[in-house]
């Protein structure tokens, strides 16, 4: 049984510029002490997530929506166990596969087959599992003999086909996807859609962050809106997405909103 329990999670991301990341400054700062040194050295912090609580259990299909920088990717990283929150707790039970960047680990000098193995290993598969899935991955990508060539000889579309075929071959208990998965050309798209649905189907928990609202309503049962690192709305996907699109249409001044002048 897979589950994720998040309690009052807050994530502060430190931003180091050159001055605060240098050892010299820190050493000088400590030896000088006092307000000035510390004030100068104190790292700038971005509060990416603020007091978020969430319960996900087997069977949940959960969507995340919100503006750029609202904290979607940060929350996904917390749910994947990559970020441990600065404050609050997270308990993750189950094997996680996280897809933030589909081309991750792809090496253009390595052959297609080698890239399948490397990509599979990064997704948490064993070499034995990968070899068992290799025929399926190769067939789905339709790249046939090209798989023996270095990926640098591929077109952009062929690369996308390859990484799509690899990432959709995993069998995770918890599947975490950032910004959907692109599948390349239109002809491939239809085929890809079925494969993506099958992947979602066989994973126990899905968490998907996306700007494509129709994708959220299609794949997710529940959904949350994030704003400035906080969950401002949570509920059935259809209702929340509807509310979000109404919001987005409101002609509120984005500048004033960002400055938080508008209450």
């Amino acid at each position, binding site marked *: 049984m897979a589950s994720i329990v998040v309690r009052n999670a807050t994530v502060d*991301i*430190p931003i*180091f510029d050159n001055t605060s*990341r*240098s*050892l*010299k400054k*820190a050493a000088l700062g400590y030896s000088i002490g006092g307000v000035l040194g510390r004030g100068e050295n104190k790292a700038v912090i971005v509060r990416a997530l603020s007091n978020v609580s969430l319960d996900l259990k087997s069977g949940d299909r959960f969507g995340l929506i919100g503006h750029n920088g609202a904290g979607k990717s940060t929350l996904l*990283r917390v749910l*994947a*166990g*990559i*970020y*441990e929150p600065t404050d609050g707790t997270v308990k993750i039970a189950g094997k*996680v596969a*996280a897809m*933030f*960047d589909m081309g*991750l*680990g792809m*090496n253009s*000098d*390595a052959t297609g087959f*080698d890239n399948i*193995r*490397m990509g599979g*290993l*990064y997704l*948490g598969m*064993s*070499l034995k599992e990968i070899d068992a899935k290799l025929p399926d991955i190769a067939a789905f990508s339709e790249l046939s003999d090209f798989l023996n060539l270095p990926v640098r000889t591929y077109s952009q579309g062929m690369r996308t086909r390859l990484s799509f075929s690899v990432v959709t071959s995993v069998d995770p208990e918890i599947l975490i996807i950032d910004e959907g998965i692109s599948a390349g050309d239109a002809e491939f798209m239809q085929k890809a859609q079925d494969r993506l649905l099958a992947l979602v189907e066989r994973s126990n928990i899905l968490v998907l962050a996306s700007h494509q609202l129709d994708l959220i309503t299609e794949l997710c049962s529940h959904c949350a809106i994030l704003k400035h690192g906080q969950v401002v709305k949570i509920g059935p996907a259809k209702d929340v997405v509807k509310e979000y699109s109404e919001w987005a249409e409101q002609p509120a001044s984005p500048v004033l909103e960002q400055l938080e002048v508008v209450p």
Partner: protein
Amino acid sequence: MYQIGPAWRDLMGSIAQWQLWAYLGLQDIKLRYRRSVLGPFWITLSMAMTIIGVGILYAKIMNTNMHDYFPFFTVGFLVWNLIASLITDGSMVFINDGAYIRQVPGPLLTYILRSSWRSIIIFFHNFIIFFGVMAYLEIWSGWGYLLALVGLALVTINCAWIALLTGILSARYRDIPQIVQSLISVLFFLTPVIWQSNQLKGRYAFIEYNPFYHFLEVVRAPLLNAPLEPRSWLITGGLAILGWIFALLFFARYRRRIVYWV
């Protein structure tokens, strides 16, 4: 706050993921030398030339017997290069693999194991030089080879904890890699690699208390059929245990912050 449980699970999880780091480490080397005829043996070749050149020169300068000096310098230089690459590569590991650390859920020590594994593979490529020298001089170390392997394992375990420690510090303070590099180059001259410790009259702290001297000795002495120094084995073995305890405590303290630093 020391999270010892998660740190320990990270270590065990990383070892269990051996397929990941073993395969990717090997792939790193293959890709680095793709389409080159000699491949990783280019390093071997350039190192062989250094060893021959420097070996002849210093044997003359120090007026020592070539038959003794050459094997001594060869082993010392090869093992020193292993130590240096384990530590300098290790100190950069979290910085260089930042993109993966931020995207792939899983234990962090995997990255240390992968970089250590890379250094070991390269070392064994280079070790051919040693066999070449020994064949040329017609020396055979017998059981010494087995003991040297044990010594080599201890040295690697030691360098891995140093790599972990400097790796964490480097992720947070970006001056550390430079400091580590300069220290390693200074230590090369202070440690008996080119020169022999018995050439110095009297006992010196920078040899007696220099852990790297003992790291070299546990591999060098068995290979050269030299008398074994129990002190070197004690120090190397002891440091392997104490060092890992210390490094794991440090890791337990800062493990969860690393992803925010890289």
